[in-house]
């Protein structure tokens, strides 16, 4: 089987985010990059599918900045076989990303049997690339997947919807499957895996190599801002029994009128 895993490299969750001066993106100079946590589920699923289908190859594809290749190296250290890096800016939009991945898969010369992605990236939270990619490739897609089984030529996919209800889909191969937390437990990269990852092949292509032009941009980012600072919390002293009744009614009133939570 040819399994493709689309990954994104995102700022570490502990990053202190600072918008650039012109508001077009965030400062990336001192960011520590990691593999998008939802994509770890996709890589793990690919490894499990590969283990069950001998002779399979896992190709990881990433579109984005090239200062660091942490995400691809992590995926290969976990066990993916090879990588394709499409060199682009850090702030490419979902449409360009999907189109670039489509171009990369076609350029690779491999016919995909399965494309796995995370359900979303934790930086911009767009949740668009899997569906756009599936549409462009004319494949079925299922997102927020928490259960995966191979069934003959296709896949039986469990998808979580509001309220914890599970929908079960049957999809023909090839399909785009966007993975959610709960699908599996991603393995740690082993130390021999880390060392082996260095020797695994990584193709580097530009956006134009995979047929993407500046005119493909659908979203221009112009005004990144930090959220407004939260006002400080209020503290109420009610150790003295005499004031407790009035303090409680004041708190209840504020929760109702100001915080609007009750």
């Amino acid at each position, binding site marked *: 089987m040819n399994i493709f895993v689309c990954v994104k490299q995102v700022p570490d969750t502990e990053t202190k985010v600072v918008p650039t001066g012109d508001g077009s993106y965030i400062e990336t100079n001192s960011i520590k990059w990691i593999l998008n946590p939802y994509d770890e589920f996709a890589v793990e699923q690919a490894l499990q599918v590969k283990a069950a289908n001998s002779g399979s190859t896992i190709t990881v594809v990433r579109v984005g900045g090239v200062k660091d290749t942490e995400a691809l*190296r992590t995926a290969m*250290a976990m066990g993916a076989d090879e990588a394709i890096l499409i060199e682009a800016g850090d702030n490419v939009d979902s449409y360009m990303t999907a189109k670039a991945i489509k171009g990369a898969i076609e350029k690779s010369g491999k016919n995909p049997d399965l494309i796995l992605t995370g359900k979303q990236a934790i930086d911009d939270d767009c949740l668009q690339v899997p569906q756009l990619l599936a549409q462009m490739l004319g494949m079925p897609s299922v997102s927020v997947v928490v259960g995966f089984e191979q069934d003959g030529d296709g896949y039986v996919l469990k998808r979580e919807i509001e309220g914890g209800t599970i929908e079960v889909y049957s999809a023909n191969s090839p399909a785009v499957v966007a993975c959610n937390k709960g699908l599996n437990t991603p393995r*740690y*990269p*082993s*130390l*021999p*895996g*880390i*060392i082996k990852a*260095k020797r695994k092949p990584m193709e580097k292509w530009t956006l134009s190599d995979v047929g993407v032009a500046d005119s493909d941009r659908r979203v221009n980012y112009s005004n990144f801002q930090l959220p407004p600072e939260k006002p400080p919390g209020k503290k109420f002293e009610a150790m003295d029994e005499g004031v407790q009744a009035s303090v409680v009614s004041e708190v209840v009133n504020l929760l109702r009128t100001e915080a609007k939570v009750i």
Partner: protein
Amino acid sequence: MTDYNYAPEQVEIREAALKFAKNEMLPRAGEFDQKQELPLEILTKAWELGLVNTCIPTEYGGAGFSTLDAVIISESLAYGCMGMNTAIMANDLALLPIALFGSDEQKKRFLTPFTESYKIASFCLTEPEQGSDAASIKTTLKKDGDDYILNGQKMWITNAGYADLFVVYATIDPSLKHKGITACVVEKGTKGIEIGKAEHKMGHRCSDTRAMNFNNVRIPAENILMKAGSGWEIAKKTLDHSRPLVAASALGGAQCAFDHAIKYAKERKQFGKPLAKHQAIQFMLADMAIKLENSRNLVHKAAWLLDEGKENTKIASFAKAYAADSCMEITTDAVQIFGGYGYSVEYPVEKLMRDAKLIQIYEGTSQIQRLIIAREILN
């Protein structure tokens, strides 16, 4: 001049080992300390990731790590739990004599199985009456036809209750002193091995420590490392390799205590401001930071010298003595910064202080390190 940067691969090794330590070891360190139980599941997982038996060369199925790689791993794992790391390092201590001095046949026979599944090993040198004075060990190895017969008692043997393999030091003739010492490999289940009950310890309580008796244990000649009488040289060189690992473990534990202290000092308020704004606490934190940096540099140099094929005895003893003593001081100060909370088992730092003490004692006490250093600098 030396390059102080880690190679890119070492950065990744460190991140992977530290991630494992923080996610898998640290959250359960207190639990296994209280249960006094070897965390086999965690250790097996560490083995699966390649974090155990770092000394096994690639020819025998190992990853072929440098000593510098190995100390980076040891420091990272000790950050999670010094006790668990003791169980991990005890494997290296036992396998190093084989990796360094074993014949090709012995390496294949004894090391390769450790790369195929998680197995446990013990290094048996100390005896009830001989600790620091290791040249006076009384366990005997007597020739009997083609074999040897092993008799004697060993004490404070890490991993003894779980080990698949023991590297035992004995003497072929006590009157020869260190020239009679011989190292042999004893396999689990050999007739005549008697393993004592688990010791109840102050720290490293999740690691398994026992006394052992060898009663007429028959050792085939092919289990002798090098030749009879070369055990002292084997033990000395093994310790040159293992001391940087132990020093790194002290460093990892100290780093963990330091990180706890920094976090607490920023959160805890007294006299209207965080502890970290009080100069008395700042001085303590600054001293801790200096000791950490010095320990790390010594550990790295001790490892780097070996990787360069150079003599490291003096620097390895510097590293072991300094990092262990610093770990004791740093963990003690961390408890002090936590105040009453630091003394409670509900908080993590008292365990670190208990664990630190052992590193000043095992694999050559801080005093023995100074004797070695004195011998080296006066020579």
